């Protein structure tokens, strides 16, 4: 066995390939761009003395794994789970692939570590609510909003974000959720317009920024630039549809306020 390779004597090819496909699907679902998923999975396969080829799609991925010593190979088609974007899972799973590559872990240890990393507790919704509200209020300040506009945006984001959390947990369609939450947040922020406060336009425009699908947009562009054109296009279309839903929600508020799409 070469230095740095994981002992595979007791593990069959299929279970290792199944593990790798699950690992790759988890990365894809957590908002990692394609080339990184492929790099990490190949690195892990290398540690198991396997050649790995991955073909990524928007909702599924196909993994081909071949054992270098026996020449046996296996194909696996895996569905990508719909998960919240997590930089923590992204970082931890990337680190895990390096630890495997450095030969620090057996296959069983690797599976155990993976299971523990994936099962780690998520951030409390109230923490997300508070921090995203502060972030959105900061956006308002960045665009020149006054303290009062920032307060309105803070409150609008809290209300919009809590509706988003609630609706998504109920399994409502994500596009409907985005349009609805954009409408809710902007209508709440419209009070700045009603009271004719300074920078009320900034308050209204920034109240929906917490919904912007930044990670899918960036991933889409990165995939396109790195040659994963089909997946990149799919991700970009998905992200643009979400942006369209945000615009629909915001337009609803504008029409209610001014009977026009201009402030």
């Amino acid at each position, binding site marked *: 066995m070469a230095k740095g390779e994981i002992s595979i004597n007791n593990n069959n090819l299929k279970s290792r390939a199944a593990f790798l496909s699950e690992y790759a699907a988890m990365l894809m679902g957590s908002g990692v761009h394609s080339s990184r998923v492929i790099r990490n999975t190949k690195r892990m396969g290398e540690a198991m003395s396997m050649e790995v080829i991955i073909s990524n799609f928007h909702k599924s991925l196909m993994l081909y794994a071949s054992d270098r010593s026996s020449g046996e190979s296996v194909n696996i088609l895996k569905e990508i789970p719909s998960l919240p974007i997590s930089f923590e899972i992204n970082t931890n799973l990337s680190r895990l692939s390096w630890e495997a590559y450095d030969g620090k872990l057996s296959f069983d240890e690797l599976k155990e570590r993976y299971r523990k990393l994936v099962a*780690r*507790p*998520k*951030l*409390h*919704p*109230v*923490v997300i609510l*508070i921090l995203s509200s*502060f972030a959105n209020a900061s956006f308002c300040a960045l665009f020149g909003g006054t*303290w*009062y506009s920032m*307060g*309105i945006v803070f*409150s*609008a984001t*809290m*209300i919009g974000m*809590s*509706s988003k959390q*609630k609706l998504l947990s109920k399994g409502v369609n994500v596009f409907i959720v985005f349009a609805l939450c954009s409408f809710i947040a902007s*209508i*709440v922020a*419209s*009070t700045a*317009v*009603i*009271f004719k*406060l300074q920078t009320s336009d900034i308050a209204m425009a920034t109240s929906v920024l917490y919904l912007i699908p930044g990670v899918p947009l960036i991933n889409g562009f990165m995939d396109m630039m790195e040659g994963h054109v089909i997946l990149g296009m799919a991700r970009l279309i998905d992200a643009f549809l979400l942006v369209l839903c945000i615009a629909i929600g915001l337009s609803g508020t504008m029409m*209610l*306020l001014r009977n026009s799409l201009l402030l």
Partner: protein
Amino acid sequence: MEIFWKTISNYNVSTWKIQVLIVLIAAVLTFRLYRRPSPFIKKAMMFFMVLLNLWVAVVYYFVYCSERPYYYIFAAFWIVMALIWCYELIRGRYKFERSYKYDKISYLLYAVPFIYPLVSLGRGMHFPMMTSPVMPCTVVVFSLGVLMSFSKKINLFLVLLLFHWALLGISKIYLYRISEDILLTICTVPAIFLYIREYIDSGVVVDSKPGVKAINLLLLGTCGIIGVVFTYIILKSFNIF
């Protein structure tokens, strides 16, 4: 500003008898909830909250405040709050279970709707051009009191809407110098802290991070910042700062 007080005056002249009736019903239902709560009284209180929110939306905003610009947006807020109470009534999750923790604060909150008119009188205003116990801000404070006394399993969305109304109160203090709304602002910040802390402690969300203590600290810091900003705006609006 002139339209603001004119609409309030019209509302008070035309509805003062009904307002007295609403206050009496609220007092009886609240008393019964404390002393002899029964499933019927709990449902009646929930139904009363739906009607009270609809009253503000329809009678106060649509009928008497239609001269104000964007009155329909404010009416929509109250319709949404009525719908939330209605949803909780139908779903039967909110059971008006007494928490016993914040009784003293909630008694204080129940008193605030009656202090509102006193503050108006103290400012030299006279009936009908003055605040009364059945107006949006007073209903918000009453709702906060009810939620605080019976705060097991609160609706977070409803609480955040009430918080936003307090923020609007701040703008009225700042722009129109309506000092009555200071009461609403003072009541809301600690109330929001206590509600969300209850929500966190209730364990609705399991297996999350950071720990409850850290989340409570974050919440305390956030409410502290909001409190400082509110105080600054209030002091500045009266040229104290």
